[in-house]
């Protein structure tokens, strides 16, 4: 068995890669994944909603600490009105952005102030520009980040709070990389984005790293699933309706079947 075993396993490795077209190396890397804890979120559970105050703070963190490298292209400013921002506030937020528009009547592109219908502009013109500014790494758009990672909210919080000042003993960091507990492989190109008092919260909350991480996670969870509150509210109604309907249909069934023996 053992002599065969060597051969078999070599074939296993070679063919698994060939058959599936996937690299064993990448699979092996992934197995050294990061660790993530669990936290309570306002939006979990069947009655969960997004904490409005956390969303406001989270927007501040996003604008202050994330938006210089990460886009949020599926969110329009007007979407903020769905979670408690007033029309005036949304206009004020939008107008701070410069949007490339055009062509105008003369055929020229021009820049103008943002409007509520605009989406958050991406910080880089294209992927190459983004990579060139970030040491070759591409900062992903954050619109869907919470859905695009397993256990997304806990992962994101873990990532934002999981930086070490120095890599643990025996770990050799590659050039320009940072050690992070949550990140797969523990080496991440993104420098620690959050620092205590990195933003001045409008509501006076103390801006600890944990607070900022939780707030921006709530904000990005909303960005990934803006329909969640509507969905859950409707879901409760639909399920209650279906349960009553099931009960009624069961009664009808019993009555109809009463004469069958």
């Amino acid at each position: 068995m053992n002599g065969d075993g060597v051969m078999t396993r070599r074939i296993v490795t070679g063919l698994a890669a060939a058959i599936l077209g996937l690299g064993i190396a990448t699979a092996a890397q992934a197995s050294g994944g990061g660790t993530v804890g669990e936290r309570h979120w306002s939006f979990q559970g069947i009655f969960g909603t997004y904490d409005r105050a956390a969303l406001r703070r989270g927007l501040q963190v996003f604008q202050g600490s994330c938006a210089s490298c990460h886009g949020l292209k599926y969110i329009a400013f007007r979407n903020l009105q769905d979670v408690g921002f007033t029309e005036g506030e949304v206009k004020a937020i939008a107008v701070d952005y410069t949007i490339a528009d055009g062509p105008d009547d003369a055929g020229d592109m021009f820049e103008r102030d943002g409007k509520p219908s605009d989406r958050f502009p991406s910080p880089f013109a294209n992927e190459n520009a983004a990579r060139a500014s970030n040491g070759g790494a591409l900062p992903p758009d954050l619109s869907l980040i919470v859905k695009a990672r397993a256990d997304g909210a806990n992962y994101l919080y873990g990532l934002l709070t999981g930086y070490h000042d120095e890599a643990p003993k025996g770990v050799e960091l590659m050039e320009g990389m940072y050690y992070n507990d949550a990140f797969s492989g523990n080496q991440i190109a993104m420098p620690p984005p959050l620092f205590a008092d990195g933003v001045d919260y409008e509501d006076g909350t103390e801006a600890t790293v944990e607070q900022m991480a939780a707030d921006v996670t709530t904000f990005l969870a909303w960005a990934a699933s803006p329909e969640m509150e509507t969905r859950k509210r409707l879901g409760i109604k639909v399920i209650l309706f279906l349960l009553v309907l099931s009960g009624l249909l069961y009664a009808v069934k019993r009555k109809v079947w009463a004469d069958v023996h």
Partner: protein
Amino acid sequence: MAAPTMNNRMIKWFDDRLPIFTFMHHELHEYPTPKNLSYWWNFGSLAGIMLVVMIVTGIVLAMHYTADANLAFGSVERIMRDVNYGWLLRYIHSNGGSMFFIVVYIHVFRGLYYGSYKSPREVLWWLGIIILLLMMATAFMGYVLPWGQMSFWGATVITNLFSAIPLVGDSIVTWLWGGFSVDDPTLNRFFSLHYLLPFVIVGVVVLHLWALHVHGSNNPKGIDMKGPQDSIPFHPYYTVKDLFGAALFFVVYAVFIFFFPDYLGHPDNYIPANPLVTPAHIVPEWYFLPFYAVLRAFDFDIWFMPAKLLGVIAMFASILVLFVLPWLDTSRVRSGTFRPVFKWFFIILIIDCVVLGYVGAKAPNDPLIASQESVQAANDEYNACVAKADAAGKNGEEECDKPFFVQYVHLGQLTTAYYFFHFLLLLPILGRTERTLPLPTSISEPVTKGGAGAGQ
């Protein structure tokens, strides 16, 4: 075959020229159905309901979707965010795929247990398998449409399977792709076929129902209806029973749609497709996992047959074997209720399929029992030994014993072998040797004195 009494003269006029009302009355109302069908018989109509749900939501989604490699991902997000109740439509459709498969798998296993494939229902059974194959093709292509990472890489892996075909394999793959990789032409044709195939399924479902109505439903006792005392009209008895079952089923379905809409999906599919970045683990949707495990169980060549080809053949054979099942199962007793030994093997088969699904979700070469650390340690030791031997001028790979540990692929091989053993060896032998229990003489008189009518 009495025509229904028609009070409306217009309907009667029409029915005289095209007897569609008579037909419906005959097939949906008075259609004699065994009176003893259990709730396991609800899953056929549930499958029909799911087909309609999928087609209706799919047609509306297609109104908003864009089949273009650069736009598809964004158009799905537009549906989720900007189309009125678009998120609901999409979640009904994406979870609907899973629900459809759950229902159909239960329907298939119900048929397996109660011998619904046996004479005179072989053609009915065949049509069911064809529907299953069409569903698989449709679901696979549907999963590609959002153009996320799993869409793209799943499509790449599965279409690549065809390259295992000798001589023409690579040409076939290029032809399927419409190019030299999965790209825009692939997405467009998948969308076209994903829209087409459900209607082909409708056609085969019509044939399936036609074949069903020739001899009527099988039943938990697996014996034929012997007269009017054994049957009840389909309506209202089974219409109301099916409706009740459907309402309960929709509760489960709704829990997924509204509270766990992405639970059955993969997070990577919310990352736009990127041909330059391969996901760490490429896994298909859960309903394909058992077949994926069969595909990957073959990690060795046999004679001139490369492992890849064997895997592909085995994967298709795992379904195709069902076509000959009516002749592989030699028992004359249909229902598992009266087959005391078969009953246990049926349970083992279910466990086998679940384990196959579990294996399909795992990386094949991950250790099954040993911890990652101990495997790592053993591998490090081996590598050190090889390096030392090589340095000494010997062939390290021959000198050192490579550590062996049980991997998921080994469990996959065991369960794959068992799957085929069940159908190809066990059922033919069991049918000849099993002492079945005495069959009841009729559906309405379940209590029998002797063993009249029992197999053997």
